[in-house]
């Protein structure tokens, strides 16, 4: 079973590589990134040698990795493309060998290997003596095994949640608190650290409870063995192994349930609306109406808006909780908020999936395609403008800088225009199929298209930052009487944003006219 599933995974990978150059490029980039991660983490952990906080930092690193394993398969770009248990449900397989096989298949791949190699840095940084190094190797293997089991358990048990359509809709929202926590770690923690509020004592403080988490136990086992306390080390490793076994058993149960529970959505729901809103405003109004309805009824769209709000708050949170209340952070918040609106919609065709064909059958001239993009932009702007403005206002008030709120709103408007322009253009030139995997509430780039997705993210982030730069410069440099300055700033920022979005619509429509059949193929290959 183990050999078979590992072979299956390798063969799937090989076939994906053979099928397209995009997949090949994506695989190579992903492998390079994995190598870079492995080297950086290894070096980072190795450099801790002799440092007083070595064990605390190793313990924290191990925990962060476990957390990453928990989060990334759910919302990121499908780093771990392990087999969907639903594909195996019809074969007469006993759950136990199936689990071993799936586990082995999860472990086969560039990222898990990179994980092991990176964390082996602890053999240099933390371990002393033969016993220490030996313990470190065992501890790292157990740690990665723990990460994989944890990730598999969580995703499989979420699959159980996703029975009815409503259940699916509801479960999808779980992503928001997880994402908020994640943002706290990557945005707030480093900021507080850079203000010198994180010291050796802080690490020991965190470690005092983290050492009792399974990853912390792995790190402390290495320390114990190096300090000549093999029994304590063995005890910790045994505990860790026990946790893995328990998780494995829970996973087996969840898997057994997931294999036999089908989608039973029979719930009836009715909509109140009797007709499409704003459909009387021509083709653009019709398209805007469709996008508008989807923003409300599609959980993914709602989640995207919530995540945008979380991002904006997280970027500014460091300035609100920190001593250094710099108003510039508010502008960064605005750029991020706008950029996320853009990149969440930077692959509309893949995100719409096969229903896009219905639109493609009706749209073909450049004028009609302009209506498609401007209709979408209108629907997004109707939500984004008040949302971003309100958050900027709130953040400015919370940071004790209410006067700088107009600057933030100006950057919101300009950034939003740029974001909509980039999302329209990327929707055409970087279109890629998206899939929704069992157990994951979010749509991800189909296998082999991860790097296209990443390119869209980085392109939108960078592009919005560059496009918003003039407004940031003007907002910071130009002073004057508020009664004149604020309206002038807001109107010119809005005008600039509208001009950018307008240009984006024209460029996108021109490109889409040539690529419509290709976009249709992307839509067909998306499974949502």
């Amino acid at each position: 079973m183990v050999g078979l599933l590992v072979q299956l995974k390798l063969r799937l990978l090989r076939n994906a590589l053979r099928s397209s150059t995009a997949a090949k490029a994506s695989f190579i980039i992903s492998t390079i990134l994995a190598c870079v991660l492995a080297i950086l983490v290894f070096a980072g952990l190795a450099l801790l040698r002799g440092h007083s906080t070595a064990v605390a930092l190793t313990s924290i690193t191990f925990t962060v990795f476990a957390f990453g394993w928990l989060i990334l398969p759910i919302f990121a770009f499908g780093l771990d493309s392990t087999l969907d248990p639903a594909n195996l449900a019809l074969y007469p397989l006993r759950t136990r060998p199936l689990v071993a096989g799936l586990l082995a298949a999860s472990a086969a791949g560039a990222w898990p290997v990179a994980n092991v190699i990176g964390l082996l840095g602890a053999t240099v940084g933390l371990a002393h003596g033969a016993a220490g190094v030996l313990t470190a190797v065992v501890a790292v293997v157990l740690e990665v095994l723990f990460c994989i089991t944890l990730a598999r358990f969580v995703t499989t048990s979420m699959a159980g949640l996703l029975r009815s359509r409503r259940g699916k809709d509801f479960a999808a929202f779980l992503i928001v608190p997880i994402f908020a926590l994640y943002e706290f770690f990557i945005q707030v923690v480093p900021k507080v650290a850079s203000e010198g509020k994180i010291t050796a004592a802080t690490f020991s403080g965190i470690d005092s409870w983290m050492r009792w988490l399974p990853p912390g136990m792995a790190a402390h086992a290495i320390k114990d063995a190096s300090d000549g306390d093999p029994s304590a080390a063995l005890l910790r490793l045994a505990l860790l192994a026990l946790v893995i076994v328990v998780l494995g058993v829970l996973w087996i149960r969840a898997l057994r349930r997931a294999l036999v529970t089908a989608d039973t959505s029979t719930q009836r729901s009715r909509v109140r609306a009797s007709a499409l809103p704003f459909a009387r405003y021509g083709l653009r109004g019709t398209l805007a109406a469709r996008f508008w309805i989807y923003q409300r009824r599609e959980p993914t769209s709602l989640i995207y808006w919530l995540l945008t709000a979380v991002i904006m708050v997280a970027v500014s949170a460091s300035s609100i909780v920190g001593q250094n209340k710099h108003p510039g952070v508010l502008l960064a918040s605005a750029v991020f908020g706008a950029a996320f609106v853009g990149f969440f919609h930077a692959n509309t065709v893949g995100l719409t999936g096969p229903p896009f064909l219905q639109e493609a059958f009706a749209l073909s001239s450049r004028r009609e395609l302009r209506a498609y993009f401007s209709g979408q932009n209108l629907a997004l702007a109707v939500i984004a403008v008040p949302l971003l403005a309100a958050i900027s206002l709130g953040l400015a008030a919370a940071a004790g800088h209410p006067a700088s709120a107009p600057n933030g709103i100006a950057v919101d408007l300009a950034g939003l225009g740029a974001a909509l322009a980039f999302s329209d253009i990327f929707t055409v030139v970087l279109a890629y199929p998206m899939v929704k995997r069992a157990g994951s509430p979010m749509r991800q780039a189909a296998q082999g298209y991860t790097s296209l997705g990443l390119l869209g993210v980085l392109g939108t982030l960078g592009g919005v930052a560059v496009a918003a730069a003039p407004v940031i410069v003007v907002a910071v440099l130009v002073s004057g009487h508020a009664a004149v300055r604020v309206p002038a700033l807001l109107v010119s920022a809005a005008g600039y944003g509208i001009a950018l979005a307008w240009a984006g619509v024209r460029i996108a429509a021109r490109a889409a006219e040539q690529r419509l059949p290709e976009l249709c193929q992307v839509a067909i290959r998306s499974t949502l």
Partner: protein
Amino acid sequence: MNQPAIAVRGLRKAFGAKEAVAGIDLEIAAGSLAGLVGPNGAGKTTSLSMMTGLLRPDSGQILINGADVWADPPAAKAIIGVVTAEAKLFERLSGEELLEYAGRLRGMPTTDARSRTGQLLDVLDLTEDAKRLVADYSTGMRKKVALGCALIHNPSVLFLDEPLEGVDPVSADVIRRLLTRFAASGSTVLFSSHVMELVEQVCDHVSIIDKGRIVVSGTTAEVRGGKTLQQAFIDLVGTRATDEEVLSWLGSSSS
């Protein structure tokens, strides 16, 4: 003779080394209800995708009422309606909203789109479910509402890929009657299927496709040649596994 409603010449498409459609020529007269039959993987869906502007052919020409699908897509697309095999629709719209949306996308005035929506819902027996989300529809209901979307702008040529796949008998009857009536009015229907009985019952023109080529094409009576269509099809395409000795272990009598 008027120009044919659908004229396909030298249509080819290869995916890598595999030639999915290897030179198809086809003419369907206006007012015809034509069936395109063939085994799985014969190139039915690929051909229909190219005829409807979804998939770029490697070579060949497709004219719909004289409009070239690939040289002048807007002109051709304006006069066709399409129901794809999986009938994936905008799930978060209600049936009523979806039909109105389809009409508005085709540039119909709001009042017309709404009145036709009501009539189509009625004919398709979906009035009761008009306000439910398409996400909660059964396969039969999806196919029916997809057909409604493809018909709302009154196309001259309608393409359907496996219209009755997975559809219950009652819905199938609704779809069949609607198609017959539509063709009787002078419009043209081309659909793919591997349900021979259906094709035999409703089609006046049949083309059999195998391994990317049209094996035979003509009126249903010509193609049948006195046999049932099922038999004619199997004779032409050939059964694949003939040696029953090979499977001697199959069945409950042997171990």
